């Protein structure tokens, strides 16, 4: 244990941009989910639905590529899933932004830490786990 305490102040501008980024990400993705929901319900609201058994083979839009294919066809579920994807990317964008802000502060240790976190997340994109 040492008695010397160093303190670091968060840059106010960075905090402000971060907060705005998160808010916009949530707002835009929710709006897209709502639009997709309206399209989906207007076409299939009276169909029966059951999720009692998990069928990964019948999964709707379970990859980024599939989502974009469905988007071209203006499929309601694909639009929803695109909004969900944006929501997932909001915190990831935050990590990327933090890396840049650490870079500007010349805090290279945290640039590296940020890149490690980003690499872990990117790994999860390519991780294909068997069921």
């Amino acid at each position, binding site marked *: 244990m040492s008695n010397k305490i160093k303190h670091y102040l968060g840059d106010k501008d960075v905090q402000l941009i971060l907060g705005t980024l998160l808010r916009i990400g949530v707002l835009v993705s929710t709006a897209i989910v709502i639009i997709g929901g309206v399209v989906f319900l207007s076409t299939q609201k009276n*169909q029966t639905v059951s999720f009692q058994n998990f069928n990964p083979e019948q999964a709707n839009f379970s990859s980024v590529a599939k989502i974009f294919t469905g988007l071209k066809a203006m499929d309601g579920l694909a639009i929803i899933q695109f909004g969900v994807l944006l929501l*997932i990317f909001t915190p990831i964008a935050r990590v990327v932004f933090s890396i840049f802000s650490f870079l500007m502060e010349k805090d290279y240790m945290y640039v590296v830490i940020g890149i490690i976190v980003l690499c872990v997340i990117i790994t999860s994109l390519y991780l294909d786990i068997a069921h």
Partner: protein
Amino acid sequence: MTVLLFTIIVLLGAFVAGLLGSLTGLGGGVIIIPLLTLGLGVDIHYAIGASIISVIATSSGSAAAYVKEGITNIRIGMFLEIATTISAIVGVIIATYIKADYIIVIFGLILLFSAFMMLRKKIDHSNNEKTSVLANYFKLNGSYPVDGVQKQYAVHHVVGGFAMMFVAGTLSGLLGIGSGALKVIGMDNIMKIPFKVSTTTSNFMMGVTAAASALVYLHKGQIDPAIAMPVTIGVISGATIGAKILIRTKTDKLKLVFAVVVVFLALQMIYKGLTGAA
């Protein structure tokens, strides 16, 4: 059940989950999963996928407000995210190898633990006399505004806190929850970070942790858009309204009532898992 009826029920349930989640500090996932599994007979795999999306939504939504206030410690968050993101992926991998019934039982136990954590007296453990060598090395010490004055704080037991985050991340990936209760234990009790800072930083981290496991769940086909749609819309609107009410209300009584409900749900989940009625 028709698509329309299913959507309306989940939308209302998710709204209540988001509202109570933001008022009591318990994540939306703890209500979403029982609602979907016990209430609507949805398979636990889909429920976990929907829940992880609700965790990201609430975390990003509330973090937006906290970050602006300058309470969140971005360095602590980023540093601990190394542990939570790696272990979240480990949690998702574990989930593919164990029986769904066991996952339901573990979820019930975590629910009991979260209810207990919600009710306990919150003691500020912060100690600013000393700090650890590692905390200095990783620049974790910081300051936050208290009544307009910047109050400094020191961070302790970095290794212990980091290890605790492995547990929190694993459970987050395994169950599709934010693991807020465990993250706060790691930061409050072990690292002795002041309460306000630990709560907001934990929330800040949750989104990143959940994003890592959400991508894996997406590929596994566990995120169904027909469920994710009402869950996302409901949770976000509930959490937004909850945050506005929170400023004006005392939540002690609500927490007590909510804890009773959560314990009841937890016991139901454990029973369901043990009897194989899942």
